[in-house]
């Protein structure tokens, strides 16, 4: 199943670096895939994807698809922004507990009807900027 894609006619304000290891994540995201790594030794997944399992320190990691659903654990709206993000301010960011059991932090895309609240159901979407993708949470209600 692929993530919903939202085109943004801008370049990313502060693009992420891509490593040989995380390239699988970022190129996958550009195609609508939402995945991270799971440790073959202890079976625990981790996000962001990293080559060493934070739990058992094994380096035997494999890529696994994640479900796109989650709930908001907390959120904020940032008004005082760093220079490169100033034109986007105010913008919402939050902490999302994914259905798969991982906690992530990401941008929350605009909610015109003000339904942004703790406990709200969200889905991960791809923000397709001109220079590459970012992931964000979009309210489902």
């Amino acid at each position: 199943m692929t993530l919903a894609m939202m085109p943004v006619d801008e370049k990313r304000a502060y693009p992420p670096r891509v490593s040989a290891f995380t390239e699988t994540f970022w190129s996958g995201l550009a195609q609508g895939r939402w995945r991270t790594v799971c440790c073959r030794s202890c079976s625990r997944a981790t996000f962001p994807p990293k080559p060493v399992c934070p739990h058992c320190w094994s380096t035997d990691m494999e890529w696994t698809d994640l479900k796109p659903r989650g709930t908001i654990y907390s959120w904020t709206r940032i008004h005082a922004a760093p220079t490169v993000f100033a034109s986007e301010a105010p913008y919402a960011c939050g902490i999302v507990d994914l259905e798969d059991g991982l906690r992530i932090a990401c941008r929350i895309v605009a909610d015109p009807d003000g339904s942004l609240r703790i406990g709200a159901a969200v889905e991960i979407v791809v923000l397709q900027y001109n220079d590459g993708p970012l992931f964000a949470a979009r309210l489902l209600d």
Partner: protein
Amino acid sequence: MTRRVAIVGTSAIPVGRHQTADDAELQTLEHEIMGRLVVEAVADAGVEKRDIQSLVFTLPRPYTRQKYFHTFLMGQLRLACRGTVMEVMGNGMTAALAFDQACNDILLGRAEVALALGINMESAVSAAEHMMSSMRTTGDVDFHTSAGFTPIAWYAMDAMRYMHEHGATRAQLGSVAVKNRAHAALNPLAQFRKPITLDDVLSQRPIVEPLGLYDVPGRSDGAACLVLASEGVARSLGRPYVRVRGRGFCHDGSHQISDVPNDMIAFDAARQAAQTAYAAAGIGPADIDIAELYAPCTIVEILVSEAIGLVPRGQGARAAADGETRLGGRIPISTSGGLTSRGHPAYVTSLYNYVELADQLRGRAGERQVQGAELGLATGELGNYNAALIHVLEAQR
């Protein structure tokens, strides 16, 4: 016999805007400020230059033109020594670590007298520009900074979560800002001293929701010097001093956020560090007379006060609004004015916390004096209180 460390002298400049723009005709130079502060603190202590055998500096901000500042200052003061000379950096915990490392050299017997000192100059750089650097420190620079997270945003999310879990209001959080401003009005070292009302706090523009301008710290410059000594030396000086009675540290193993869902606002690192410090001191939280917490926002003071057991879980906002943590209340917190009003020259902020506690425990806090203060507590932290460093200090008058 166990070696003990004492604070025997302090000095500091008022927190404020001291940094000059690069093109100003006359410039403020960090080493001129620092050199004067060393002389002042050493005079306060009553020790001699030759007694100082270790110096632990906080890392200067990148805007300080003089690099390797610590050894440059040694040269300015012709301070030769045989213990250790270093700069330390530990994020928000930087100044608390400088204090802790200076204590260590005394505990190890490498020095009888050690200085913990530093200067933080940044206010001439705009907040938006400074955030281009600070946004790379909190969270993952590739996976979080790309989304626009800022250092204060994480504390804002703590506030949202706390309000959701305990029904606390913006007004209760704001009462911490009002209280601390009232304390700062009595503190000559404080940056912001004009009293404010709750209406003032609630009507400020949002910075990171739900936190407004007065819920968060401003941009600050500052510098301070602490003189530490072995207790043997402290006794020989014949003046009131402050003994370090307990110390605790905990890092929870995460940087800003854990990918394993947890109780983010429990500040468990602070709880554990406090338990260790209390046990080392042979006391409990009810024995603390005064606390200077590293709390960049109103919500952080509330959460830490709960985590270290000064108020019950979920009651911190109510306790603050009820006046329990005000001067004259059950457990005065941030009598200096705290980070929001005393100011927050980040890498040296904790030095100011120790200066306030040393003043209180030596009976020199003037209008801010907590009567009969015997035991004080300081916290340092990094991240979203992912790590905490706590010291229990005791008056010896």
